[in-house]
């Protein structure tokens, strides 16, 4: 029971506040960070609406609304301060939406949001306490619940020929042509089929970079995601080492083991740009709550994510492994934090000179 703050006993007109030092603070706050991350995701989100039309927007709104509602309800019920305005629930919702297929049935995003916020985040106490990435728990949860819906992808409306205008004009239509994701094609039909589905290797790279391809809502436009990530790096909210470690590991390993013809015949560029790797590396492997705290630890985290991603992509049952790799490394995070920490000042004593 906390003592009730009564004001009746104020005797002096002016009461000085006492807190411990320091008494000044810089301007960063959790709320600011979260909203800026939201903003940096916005371009990719808008692109996805162009690419997949209104269904994409609906999915996003459902995820975000579900997350907010869930968080508010739980905090209300637990009689805690309601902190939906800090943007973290919005961010979780947005990120969850960005790794769902566009136009998925309406209740699936809601279940995902519930899993993300209620199960992953608030069973542990809310922002800062969760050990698994809520958005990914949400995704894995619905992946296990509705695998069919989760592997039914819509076709890119912009298409191979980069028809932006056409896509924009069709934005309100609800047609859902299903198509496979690049990694799905790779897994089931092989590399050549994939290249020919884009009409050429260069075209493929271009599509992967710009995002006029099938896939999860927000993962397609690598270039916009990278730009967003660079903003975060510049603002020092995330460290460049993490995405570099993760994407680099995937690149090297897929180059080495990804090819059918032998060692070092894989196509690293394809693997680095496809799937959720870019969004995962810039926005999810960098989620501060669920990753190690030290830079060294974060690099290990990134490398681990890359490793598991490749393992799943090349040898696993799923075509894509970013989500699971991040969740698995989330589980390893406490171990990393236990063993990787800064060497304290003066821990390596230089020999004391004595006369």
């Amino acid at each position: 029971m906390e003592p009730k703050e009564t004001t009746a006993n104020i005797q002096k007109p002016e009461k000085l506040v006492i807190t411990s030092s320091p008494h000044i603070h810089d301007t960063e706050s959790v709320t600011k960070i979260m909203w800026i991350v939201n903003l940096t995701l916005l371009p990719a989100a808008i692109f996805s609406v162009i690419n997949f039309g209104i269904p994409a927007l609906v999915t996003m709104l459902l995820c975000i609304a579900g997350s907010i509602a869930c968080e508010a309800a739980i905090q209300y019920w637990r009689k805690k301060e309601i902190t939906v305005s800090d943007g973290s629930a919005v961010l979780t919702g947005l990120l969850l939406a960005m790794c769902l297929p566009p136009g998925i049935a309406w209740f699936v995003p809601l279940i995902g949001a519930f899993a993300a916020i209620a199960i992953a985040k608030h069973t542990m106490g809310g922002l800062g306490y969760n050990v698994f990435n809520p958005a990914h728990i949400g995704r894995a949860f619905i992946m296990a619940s509705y695998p069919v819906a989760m592997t039914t992808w819509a076709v890119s409306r912009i298409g191979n020929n980069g028809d932006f205008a056409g896509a924009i004009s069709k934005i309100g239509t609800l047609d859902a042509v299903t198509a496979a994701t690049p990694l799905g094609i790779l897994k089931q039909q092989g590399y050549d089929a994939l290249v020919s589905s884009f009409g050429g290797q260069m075209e493929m790279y271009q599509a992967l970079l710009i995002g006029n391809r099938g896939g999860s809502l927000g993962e397609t436009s690598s270039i916009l995601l990278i730009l967003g990530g660079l903003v975060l790096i510049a603002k020092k909210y995330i460290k460049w080492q993490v995405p570099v470690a993760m994407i680099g590991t995937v690149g090297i390993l897929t180059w080495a083991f990804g090819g059918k013809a032998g060692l070092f015949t894989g196509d690293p560029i394809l693997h680095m740009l496809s799937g959720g790797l870019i969004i995962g590396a810039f926005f999810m492997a960098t989620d501060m709550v669920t990753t190690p705290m030290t830079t060294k630890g974060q690099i290990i985290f990134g490398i681990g994510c890359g490793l598991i991603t490749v393992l799943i992509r090349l040898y696993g049952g799923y075509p894509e492994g970013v989500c699971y790799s991040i969740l698995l490394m989330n589980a390893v995070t406490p171990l990393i934090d236990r063993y990787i920490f800064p060497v304290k000042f003066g821990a390596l004593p230089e020999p004391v000179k004595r006369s």
Partner: protein
Amino acid sequence: MLTAIYAILVMIGLGMMFGLLISFANKKWSVEVDPRIHEVDEVLPKGQCGGCGYPGCMAYAEAVVMNPNVPPNLCTPGKDAVAKQVAEITGKKAEAMETVIAFVRCAGTYEKAIRTGEYKGVKDCVSANILVGGDKGCTYGCLGYGTCVKVCMFDAMKMSPEGIPVVNPDKCTGCGKCATVCPRTIITLTPPGVMVKVNCNSHDKGAIVRKHCKAGCIGCGMCSKDCPYGAIVIDNFLAVVDSKICLEKCSDPVCLTRCPTKVIRPAIWGVVPGKELREEIKA
């Protein structure tokens, strides 16, 4: 049929072999632990409060069994009953244990005592105290952030809404944990039956006490003057009750009515000192 007979034979063979193995191992390799340790551990109340001075009940059990110099009555929460049992198991002589409970020597509720500042730090008395003594005007008084309440393992303390902790004598085991953590050493351990207790800890001069708190002991000495048994003395502007005299001799606490600030109160549990005190004394 044959299979069934084989089964019986195999089972007997296994049983015999393992029987021999275990009994052999038992004889050759078993390490005896003094079983009394477990017996003692079983009678201890398992509060793991450390009141005995050992890190946990098991550690005390080990010490009291293995070390002849460790007395059997160190477990305060267990009171006499446990001490007796431990003594029996270990064959040591049990000395009677003084029962005590915690007593909070402050009546400076939000209403009575001023707060000079607005404390916005960690909600903890020690934390408040290290910031230039915290926000309470009285530098001896209870800060009211409940550090003592948090450490009580027996759920015997609650923070009253008025900002002073109260002790439940039924639950308090007298382990003294709360007393050790209070940065202002407000909590003392006293025998539960004492007639009166002084509800203040301030050694300030009367004038200063008055400035800070309406319920403080101003050291006027009225109580000590009128106590027929001389159980109260004024020590550096604070009345101190000799609980032994008070417990043994007094039956009619006159001091209660004498005290101008009503800081001496009857030892009735549960009443938050302050608001109700007056009515209570009237009744």
